[in-house]
């Protein structure tokens, strides 16, 4: 496969994309010109402004089609590939039993004002996700799911109390970058409360995270959209129990 590709509309290399946006100006010819200008700045040339609709007196909505002149360089794509083996529940339990010789303690929560527990529950609850059972189902894990809207100090306290090996935090609301702010607040609090060596592994997840931002946010790992419990379990074993075979 070629290392350099372009978007595909109807033929190889045609570079075609679709874009929509609103500009805060009334709908007239100038607005359409403004839309074309924006499309050009995005690298679309030629840009077809195929739809323009006034939304009240102050806004116009646009749909633009056109050929984008950027190349996608596959060699330069940054991907966080899974860098740990995917284990079955049996293997996970065996590894914990054999190598850790005590249950692996996990604390989970939605922090800040976020009350979307379905995601973290999908990872932790027995019911699980996409046909896979959650971590509570595993003999090797001791799971403390604190639920929704947990203040960070409470989370830190709970993690200390139960001697958590890992803290799993979910963030679903992203408006005004709430998820990023909350995550930063959380990692700062853990850094403050725990000496580096005894700090639990910090894992965040949620559908709108960029998985490559872990370092930037000060967490050990980020899990995005569609994560399954087995991935999380395998990662925890990999990081906490360490390498080795069941």
């Amino acid at each position, binding site marked *: 496969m070629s290392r350099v590709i372009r978007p595909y509309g109807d033929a190889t290399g045609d570079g075609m994309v679709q874009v929509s946006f609103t500009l805060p100006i009334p709908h007239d010819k100038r607005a359409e010109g403004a839309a074309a200008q924006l499309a050009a700045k995005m690298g679309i040339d030629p840009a077809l402004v195929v739809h323009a609709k006034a939304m*009240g007196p102050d*806004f116009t909505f646009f749909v633009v089609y056109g050929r984008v002149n950027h190349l996608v360089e596959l060699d330069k794509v940054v991907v966080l590939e899974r860098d740990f083996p995917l284990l079955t529940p049996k293997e996970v339990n065996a590894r914990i039993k054999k190598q850790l010789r005590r249950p692996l303690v996990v604390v989970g929560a939605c922090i800040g*004002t976020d009350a979307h527990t379905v995601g973290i529950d999908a990872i932790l609850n027995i019911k699980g996700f996409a046909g896979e059972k959650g971590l509570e189902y595993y003999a090797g894990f001791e799971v403390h799911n604190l*639920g*929704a*809207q947990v203040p960070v100090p409470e989370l830190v306290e709970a993690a200390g109390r139960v001697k958590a090996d890992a803290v799993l935090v979910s963030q679903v609301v992203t*408006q*005004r970058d709430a998820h990023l702010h909350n995550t930063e607040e959380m990692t700062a609090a853990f850094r403050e409360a725990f000496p580096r060596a005894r700090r639990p592994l910090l894992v965040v997840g949620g559908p709108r995270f960029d998985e490559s931002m872990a370092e930037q946010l000060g967490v050990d790992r980020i899990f995005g959209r569609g994560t399954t419990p087995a991935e999380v379990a395998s990662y925890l074993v990999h990081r906490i129990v360490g390498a080795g075979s069941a």
Partner: protein
Amino acid sequence: MRLQLDPTQVARARALAASAAAPVLTLTQQHTTVSIERAVLRMAGLEGADAEGIPWVNRLADAVAEQVGLQHGIALPVWDALQAQRRADIAVGADPLRTLAQRAAAGSVEFRVPQGRAAAAATSGAVRAARAGVRRIDRQRRARERLVARYPVDHRPWIYLIVATGDIHEDVPQAQAAAREGADIIAVIRSTGQSLLDYVPEGATREGYAGTYATQENFRIMRAALDDVSKELGRYVRLTNYASGLCMPEIATLAGLERLDMMLNDSMYGILFRDINPIRTFTDQHFARQVHARAGIIINTGEDNYLTTADAVDAAHTVTVSQLLNEHFAKQAGLEDWQLGLGHAFEINPDLPDSFRLELAHALLARTLFPDAPLKWMPPTKHMTGDIFRGYLLDAFFNLAGVLTGQGILLVGMMTEAVVTPWLSDRDLALQNVRYVMNAAGRLGEDLAPADDGFIATRARHVLDEAVELLERIDDDGLLDAIADGTFGLMRRPADRGKGLEGVLPRADDYCNPVATVLAEGTAS
């Protein structure tokens, strides 16, 4: 479209709901809460906050609670202290109640629970103050009635749109734009944290997350903006906000005072989805609904939420059970049928065969069980994905189900449901979707005649039967235990836990609530 239900089964369902609710209603009569007591102060006109943004009602209630407790009702100690303040010739300006709150916050008021004549005097002062507040609510109700007559909305369903920028000054133009595009109802979603705050923030706010704070000033600003646009359009645009949460009674009061038209107010949402203590929620809810009843406000219940955590087919009957409970609680608080925006939703997995016919069955069951209630029909959310085209499609079928089954309030679905809080353009596109469906197929219901033994009718009857079974079980075990067991939305919420429990107080024998007294005197309608 129509559906035949066995009237004895329907009657049985209602009777079971009433008997399941009865013990809980008794509990609500035996308790008060900090928010109910603060609502009494708000009804009496106490506004504003201290320099840290803590409302005076909280300051005053905290002071009273600390000194004498709130189990007698806040009215007795406060109106007693007001009389003392008057007697002491303290300079009070225009607002003796606020002066009292300021002094109390400074620690310079000593409260007592008045007895005998003092109690009678405090009570009558409090009742006078409450009556002034209730009159203001009555005036707002009449103002609404006048405006509705002048700018009538003569179609159904009403189109309900959400605004959620977090900044009231961004919300206003977006709400007006939405109204111009056809919204009949604007809901200003609240900031994520607010429902767990044990106070109502003050002033115009610009700093919410995924929603804008519900404050009295924000209510005013938005209602005024919508009055302007109602006039411009010749169509009264209704305003909605959220009562549920730790401050349900207060927000309900503010809504009445500022002429909001509808309020999200569910008897169990706070318990299930905010982990608020069950007794707190039921008690708050009853008071809040009494205020809504007086204010002519339509409530919206939250059964739709169950289907975001539970499966929409498996748990369909829990929606029905909850609707019956919400109906009974509402009636007991004085609400009339036209005020019952009972919730349900289009949340069946779209990959399920016949999913649309199942949706029709459920929607028709609700429509048939509550023929006079303006049912609130909620769009798909759980099965929405980042595929905005598929989302737009699902929303179209949601709209179609809504118009075919005659839902009263259509909460407009957004193609970006799984991505962001709605953009301006999302609303515009969503309304275009609604308009097309209403215009092109709005009367298609006339051509639909599901056979009495067909798929749709059979499914609807089956859900009703399951609902009756569940109500029987609840009736046996008690509603609070059912909630503790995860019956609704798979959430387990024991009655002795949850947030805000410390704000629940058993009423003392001399408990006095002047607002309740005034409301009991008779309604304005």
